[in-house]
């Protein structure tokens, strides 16, 4: 009898946890779906860097941190997904520099934008990340040597990166990240739908589902 009570309790606890989780995730998905319609600017701001056609119907919003290893690892994978559906996906980059000192790299990126080398710089940044972002101690001075590879004027970057407007951009993005409950990077939203369980395959499936839904005609 005691074994039965114990076993049933275990089962009930387990089921409550599993159903609670899936219920919560469904609620969140609905909440963000609603926000995507009613409050689209939380996902994309005027200052946000985008890549892809303006005709695209699928918006892939990525909250990223230049010092985050997983963001670097996902960067080529996101490009693969975009290449698989040419013209159908628009990538929106948002900043969530959670690592200490990662703001500096966002500043460098924004400064590179002024020179029209945003994506080249991001690419170099990700590729050289192991050199300048040893654990929890990102050091901008270690990045300088790589920046000319992106065709940048480094002296100009050093001037431009201190623009207070960039601080405002970071603050806005961090505030939106909090609203959208992004606590880890990279954080993905596809047309407002959050990536429920993290993984490349899951991201691919979510994008595919949205492509199918929006381009069915």
């Amino acid at each position, binding site marked *: 009898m005691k074994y039965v009570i114990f076993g049933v309790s275990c089962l009930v606890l387990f089921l*409550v946890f599993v159903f609670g*989780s899936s219920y919560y995730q469904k609620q969140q998905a609905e909440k963000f779906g609603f926000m995507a319609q009613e409050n689209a600017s939380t996902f994309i701001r005027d200052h946000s860097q985008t890549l892809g056609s303006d005709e695209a119907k699928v918006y892939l919003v990525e909250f990223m941190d230049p010092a985050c290893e997983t963001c670097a690892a996902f960067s080529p994978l996101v490009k693969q997904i975009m290449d698989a559906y040419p013209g159908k996906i628009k990538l929106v980059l948002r900043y969530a520099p959670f690592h200490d000192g990662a703001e500096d790299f966002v500043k460098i990126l924004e400064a590179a934008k002024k020179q029209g080398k945003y994506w080249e710089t991001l690419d170099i940044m990700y590729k050289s990340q192991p050199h300048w972002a040893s654990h929890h101690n990102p050091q901008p001075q270690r990045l300088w040597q790589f920046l000319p590879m992106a065709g940048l004027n480094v002296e100009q970057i050093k001037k431009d990166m201190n623009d207070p407007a960039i601080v405002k951009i970071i603050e806005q993005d961090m505030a939106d990240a909090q609203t959208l409950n992004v*606590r880890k990077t990279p954080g993905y939203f596809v047309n407002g739908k959050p990536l429920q369980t993290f993984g490349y395959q899951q991201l691919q499936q979510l994008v595919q589902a949205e492509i199918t839904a929006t381009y069915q005609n």
Partner: protein
Amino acid sequence: MPQPDPKSNANWTILFLCWLLVSMSTLGSLFFSNVMEFAPCVLCWYQRICLFPLVIILAAGLFPFDKSVVKYVLPLVIVGWLMSLYHTLLYAGIIPENIQPCTQGVSCTEEYIDLFGFLSIPMLSFLAFSTLLTLLIILMRRISK
């Protein structure tokens, strides 16, 4: 099959309730961190260290019922209870934040939930540890009689 006497049956039930409480608290804590993705602060981790093993230790004491399990879980429960008391006071602002031990990562006073206008996560922990401590003291007294 020998009929167990009602007194030891009641003792088993008390211990079982302790286990149930601990299991619910553990799953609740995991729900906050893994499903709702709230990052646990340092103080939360110390309380979790005292809480999580109880699920296993109490279950082991249930089959067959072993009264000495109380002796082994009590130190963990007392430490957890003190931590949760400290955390609750810190959260409520009764202890000033500048003497808190957490410097990096999540602040121990970051507000994640506010159930019914007064229940915070540290308070949930405090309530759980207090109930647990009460149940264990009751059980200890019954056993020593």
